[in-house]
């Protein structure tokens, strides 16, 4: 191979640019300065743009920014079922300038995925609210109530095909919990995310699904789908006519939730500032109205309460995952 000098030069410059750029992107250093915050804050969303986590993350950033002199930049770091974004925050400099938002996938991931962070690897500072699962059936299935659904499933085990996430995903766990608490057996059919599950119940490939209420509320109104019950403590504000599972005699609360977190080791004053900032934002009536418009339940909790909440969730989930053979990475 013979290079002219101009080309040897361009090779060198090209290699240099690629490596420099890679290094800049990889390092992402930020110096800590007083007073806090004097630099832009980054909010890391662990799912892609346009999804539920992204929407709520951006509304929170929007309303939190109004209480600050610095901007809040939202970035999406997605992959590995939400674990990539959590790791991105957990491994960032603990200076308070990197904040993350995550959901219930954190708890399942730590047992399923050896490379995912455990709950102890991060510092939860506020709970945003729950996103309860519900049970939906096709209208043409002839099932009009939860009792009928349970009866159908008991008289003919595994005959009902339920659409849900891959094992360990939120709607899969909801379906597994439904099987346990109602003492029924379903055929669990995995889909990659909520949208394909919605498509499958509308095409008739599956008879029921365990998606959150807002995924199928329009189809419920149009009479294509019946929502039989909501897996929450209280009724969902988008569907006040639909009873909870508890009201119908099945003790089942399941679904997703969302929380804001920091890497471990953020200085106490920065941490206290951020906890107060996000609690005030989440309690802001204007923010709550905006979030409700986007179909989100907002029930703010302090850092201490959030930790208790997530620990209780962990305690409840572990035996379910163990039984489903999903505890692979670490044991309790």
């Amino acid at each position, binding site marked *: 191979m013979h290079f002219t000098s101009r080309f040897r030069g361009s090779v060198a410059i*090209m290699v240099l640019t690629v490596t420099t750029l*890679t290094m800049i992107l990889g390092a992402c250093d930020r110096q800590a300065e007083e007073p806090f915050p004097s630099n832009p804050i980054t909010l890391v969303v662990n799912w892609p743009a346009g999804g539920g986590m992204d929407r709520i993350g951006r509304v929170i950033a929007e309303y939190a920014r109004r209480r600050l002199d610095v901007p809040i930049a939202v970035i999406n770091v997605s992959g590995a079922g939400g674990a990539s974004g959590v790791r991105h925050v957990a491994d960032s400099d603990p200076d308070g300038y990197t904040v993350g938002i995550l959901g219930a996938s954190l708890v399942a991931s730590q047992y399923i995925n050896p490379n995912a962070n455990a709950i102890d690897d991060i510092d939860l500072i506020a709970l945003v609210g729950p996103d309860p699962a519900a049970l939906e059936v096709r209208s043409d299935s002839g099932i009009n109530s939860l009792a009928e659904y349970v009866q159908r499933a008991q008289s003919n085990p595994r005959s009902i095909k339920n659409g849900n996430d891959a094992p360990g995903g939120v709607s899969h766990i909801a379906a597994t919990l439904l099987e346990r608490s109602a003492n029924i057996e379903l055929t669990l059919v995995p889909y990659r995310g909520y949208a394909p599950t919605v498509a499958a119940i509308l095409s008739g490939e599956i008879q029921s699904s365990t998606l959150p209420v807002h995924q199928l509320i329009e189809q419920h109104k*149009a009479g294509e789908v019946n929502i039989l019950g909501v897996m929450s403590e209280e009724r969902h504000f988008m569907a006040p006519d639909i009873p909870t599972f508890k009201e119908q005699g099945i003790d089942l609360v399941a679904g997703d939730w969302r929380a804001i977190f920091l890497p471990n080791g953020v200085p106490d004053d920065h941490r206290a500032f951020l906890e107060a900032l996000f609690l005030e934002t989440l309690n802001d009536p204007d923010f709550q109205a905006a979030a409700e418009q986007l179909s989100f339940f907002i029930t703010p909790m302090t850092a201490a309460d959030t930790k208790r909440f997530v620990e209780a969730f962990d305690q409840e989930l572990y035996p379910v995952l163990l039984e489903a053979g999903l505890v692979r990475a670490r044991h309790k």
Partner: protein
Amino acid sequence: MALAILLPVTYAMSPIAAMVFLMAVFSASVFGGSISAILINIPGTPGAIVTQLEGYAMTCRGKASEALTYSLFSSTIGGIIGLIILMLVAPIVAGAAMQFRSPEFTMATVFGLTMLAYSTPGSTFRGVLSGAVGLLCGMVGFDLVTDVSRFDFGTSALQSGIELVPLTVGLFGLAEVLRGVENNTTQTDRTPPLKALTPSFAQLKRLWKTILRGSALGAIVGAIPAAGSAIAVAVSYAQEKRLSKRADEFGTGVPEGLAGPEAANNACVGGALVPLMTLGIPGDTMTAVLMGALLIHGLRPGPLLFTERPDFVATVYVALFLALLLTFVLGFLLIRHFVRLMRTPSHILLIIIALLCVVGAFAIRNNVTDVYIMIAFGVIGYVMNKLEIPVAPLAFGLILGPILEENLRRSLIISDGSWMVFIERPIALTMLLLSLGALFYPFLRNPGKLLSINQ
């Protein structure tokens, strides 16, 4: 990609303005993806993945502006036909699309892979080899059915799987940069004077059948949730090659091979909006982002959208039409300038392309791992090119592999393990027979040909 980056910009807009903006981005980005495919061999969108087979070949022969004009012309017509189908027969198309369940998806993917093997230029065996490597790449990361991470070599870097963008940017873009450095050719030498290179109207008119076929195919395949434009362009390209009298010349810059897929990927825009508007189901990643935008503005697409918000539906139609029109006008005015970019001295151009490769790979998930993956595939693409193994099948394998595996396994879960589902369902059976026909037809016609490895 463009849609995901620009989505946050719309949060402050009024719902209607946001919708017009996003429809324009959605529609224009399809042609935008083809520009980079034609000029620098990097497909900007999954739908542009066969565009470069003919388009870049034309650029290398100094016919860049001709290729861009063909692309713009067929894109616009394809987009308008897709829009007309969306406006007139959306409910019917949606009903037909809902006939597609897991067994149909499985067989549609098998059909797509068969078409791919058929349309690969040169040795079929090398094409199939490359496609198989692509299928394998598609298996990296978390498995849907068991949620076990596969082929990750114990690192979290590969757990999220190999994204299409870093792979194609590396395989096509960076590999091309490496070749450019080695060959010591300057783009200036390859770009003859600009005049008299746009095709005449008669030349464009000759393509009308190709464009119509591509458009119809794109609109229908686009409407099937999860099928996406990549399958549409693969089938369109294979079909044009099959129907062409010059099938042997495909891969060297045949206008039909460019116009068909270009019409198809633009018609897909209208098609992909069908399930979103009528059923509330986003069919691909682009419409998923669009659905997110609608939700942010308090609009919940679903079966009641047409009766409750006719104003909104009308806005989408008009916005899409205006976007197509503006893309055409802007494209027409800018083509000569795009081509002039190619006259940049190559030692500068190659550096810019290398930079764009890094930024593009990083931006897709804000993840530096994707940059390493891009560089790795850049080297792989370069080596494959030296060995004369076609790289396009690898990208196709990556797109189709996960769809095939996921739907095959889900079909079997639903059927309790019975393979009869693929035979009992008419659409699935038809596609299975078509695939078998395409596979064995050349063998029956000429048994010796299949056995010769080097064509």
